[in-house]
């Protein structure tokens, strides 16, 4: 079994260090009166260069908040994020982000969307065109350069969003449930494509999802998060052979076993001292498809 995590020199400096992240929201209006909601508590995680890490957990476990903090779009109340040893203080072009809602600019063509980050980076026009052509090719949208987003299907829009995030050459790709809004078949195709793109570009990817199956299929390691408060329950290494794309790996016993293990982790409650009062099975909060 070849696994990327094994190829990494153990004492190498991690690409991303997440240290003791805490994030609390003050809720002013609620039936229970004003109170503090702990979205994230003592989150720590290290990600190696070129690694694919998935964050999986029920809704409300703070996984999207964590991604926003990694992107520099939100600030933690405590703890810090370091990329290449430098603390993250705000958004920057060293990280690319892909959101669930595509977030394509409707007034821009596919090419203009892909070139958006390059314009901000002040890349010259000729070079921009060359780069956008390359990444539109990479995501398989050759011939659609001059289409507008409303002329594309959901799967195609997400390909454009991926090309846009990759075009300005960030080292880290942050993906927030990017395939949640597309149908099951398109979703599997996009997962295959993402793995191919990842292997071609060698980006470090942090991928948020609520689908256990998706996390197991894609990632080198899966960080299992639980809610109330959002904490890392366990980090599960995925020892499945690569390349996994265009293979029948989903029906292998190892795949099923790993998926089941994560499902159990999400179902079994963490120790009681962490969650006084609110005894809610975490699996209930996960979409039914995730537990399939």
């Amino acid at each position, binding site marked *: 079994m070849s696994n990327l995590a094994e190829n990494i020199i153990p004492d190498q400096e991690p690409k991303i260090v997440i240290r003791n992240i805490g994030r609390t929201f003050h809720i002013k209006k609620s039936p229970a009166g004003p109170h503090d909601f702990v979205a994230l508590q003592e989150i720590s995680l290290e990600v190696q260069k070129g690694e694919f890490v998935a964050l999986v957990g029920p809704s409300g476990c703070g996984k999207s908040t964590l991604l926003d903090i990694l992107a520099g*779009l939100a600030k933690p109340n405590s703890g810090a994020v370091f990329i290449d040893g430098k603390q993250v203080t705000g958004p920057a072009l060293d990280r690319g*982000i892909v*959101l669930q809602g595509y977030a394509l600019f409707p007034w821009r063509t596919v090419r203009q969307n892909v070139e958006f980050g390059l314009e901000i980076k002040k890349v010259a026009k000729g070079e921009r065109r060359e780069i956008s052509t390359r990444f539109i090719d990479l995501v398989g949208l050759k011939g659609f350069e001059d289409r507008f987003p409303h002329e594309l299907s959901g799967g195609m829009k997400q390909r454009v969003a991926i090309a846009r995030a990759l075009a300005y050459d960030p080292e880290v790709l942050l993906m927030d449930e990017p395939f949640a809004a597309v149908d099951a078949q398109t979703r599997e195709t996009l997962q295959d494509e993402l793995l191919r793109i990842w292997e071609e570009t060698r980006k470090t990817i942090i991928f948020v999802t609520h689908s256990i199956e998706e996390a197991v299929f894609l990632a080198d390691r899966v960080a299992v998060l639980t809610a109330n408060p959002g904490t890392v329950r366990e980090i599960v290494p995925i020892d499945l052979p690569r390349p996994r794309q265009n293979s029948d790996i989903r029906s292998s016993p190892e795949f099923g076993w790993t998926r089941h293990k994560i499902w159990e982790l999400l179902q079994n409650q963490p120790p009681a001292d962490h969650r006084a009062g609110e005894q809610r099975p975490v699996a209930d909060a996960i979409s039914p498809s995730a537990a399939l």
Partner: protein
Amino acid sequence: MNTKDIIIRRIILLAIVLLAWETLPRLGVINPLFIPPLSGVITALRELAGNGEMATHAAISLQRAALGFAAGAVLGLPLGLVLGGWFPRLQTALEPLMELFAQANPLILFHVIILFLGIGEAAKTFIIGWLCLWPVTFATITGVRTADPTLLKAARSLGLGRAGLFVRVTLPAAAPSIVTGLRLAAGYAFIMLIAAEMMGASSGLGWLVIQAQESYHITRIFAGAFVITLLAITADWLLKLLGGRFLSRVESGADDYVRMQGSAGKI
């Protein structure tokens, strides 16, 4: 149903209405003194066009409408951008007051304005500008405020600053709404123009219509109304053309729908 069919149907319907206009007064179904037949209106139009009267009055009217519209747009756009984009709290506080200004009856207001500015061009420009100001301002605020937050988030993740976000994301996202506001304002401009010219002017299409009414030239009333409508439709069409740049690119645009229906019919 393809585009060609739609156009044919529209032409047929229009022809039926015009034919009824011509024949019903002639047959005496409608009193021709109140609604003269189409041919009579055309004769009056040719007469007014021939002696240059129509062109003179249309030109002065158009100038008034354009001036008022321009004033409203030039003030309303930045006002909407600043209030919607930079001072949302001030905007919320000002909203009832702005609503009041927008709803205040302009015909009554016009008499107050005349007290200050006299009965000349300034008062007319002011009242038309005033009426155009609000739809432009409100539409701009709405456009800025309803800019898709995920677009802003995606752009912000690239490290784009406040000014950059505004120019590259908020403004283009608000453009369709702004164009709608401008089209509304243009419509208001023509309505107010005629009212203002009827209340106090010695030239313009509104004055022409009032004159015709007082001298029982009913065909001239219709001729005046025809030219006013033509100008208003042309103005709207021009703004639509300008806005088409943005509007056609927005999801589920009406024009796209027509085109899609057209191509689906051909397959």
